């Protein structure tokens, strides 16, 4: 079996700060995703990537950048952290058209 590792687990940032979240997977999956989960809400797609160096915008991409440096890693940058951005950011990966596997998340707090 594989694993998705997200770092850091907890991230505290200042309002206006640029923050980067990292994700590594050893499943050798082609597709990787970044979702945002707000308390009491479902998961909303920020960015996804179907292969190395590919980027596709999701429904919530404004205010974020992403980078797929290599097949196993996918990073997400919050370009200017806002106080209403406190949420859990979930990274996921999947082979084509099958189950999506999730990491445990990075909990972001903006002060």
């Amino acid at each position, binding site marked *: 079996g594989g694993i998705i590792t997200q770092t850091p687990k907890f991230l505290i940032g200042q309002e206006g700060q640029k923050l980067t979240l990292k994700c590594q997977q050893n499943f050798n999956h082609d597709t990787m995703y970044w979702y945002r989960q707000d308390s*009491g809400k*479902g998961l909303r797609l920020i960015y996804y990537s179907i292969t190395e160096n590919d980027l596709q915008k999701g429904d919530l991409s404004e205010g974020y950048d992403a980078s797929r440096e290599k097949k196993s890693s996918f990073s997400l940058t919050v370009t200017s952290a806002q106080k209403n951005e406190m949420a859990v950011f979930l990274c996921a990966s999947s082979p084509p058209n099958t189950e999506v596997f999730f990491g445990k998340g990075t909990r972001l707090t903006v002060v």
Partner: protein
Amino acid sequence: QQQVRQSPQSLTVWEGGTTVLTCSYEDSTFNYFPWYQQFPGEGPALLISILSVSDKKEDGRFTTFFNKREKKLSLHIIDSQPGDSATYFCAARSTNTGKLTFGDGTVLTVKP
């Protein structure tokens, strides 16, 4: 407009009872419908899934039903256990984009 609508928001059942969660959708390009289970501090984990060519899939105490004509699906949990207490999400994937869209989730509490 929310693409996948899930109800109820929260639900409490007694141990041994049957839990029923429902979702509806509008997009006709959705063809794959997974249900995820999430415990606090963890990422969502796949519980059961169904393709639009099927109307029922069963896995132990968990069964998902799909009604293509009405664009609805449901998750039934029989003999509910306190360990089933978690948040459950339905989701749908589009054949066009490959994007997986989630409902807002149901917080299930099973009381002993």
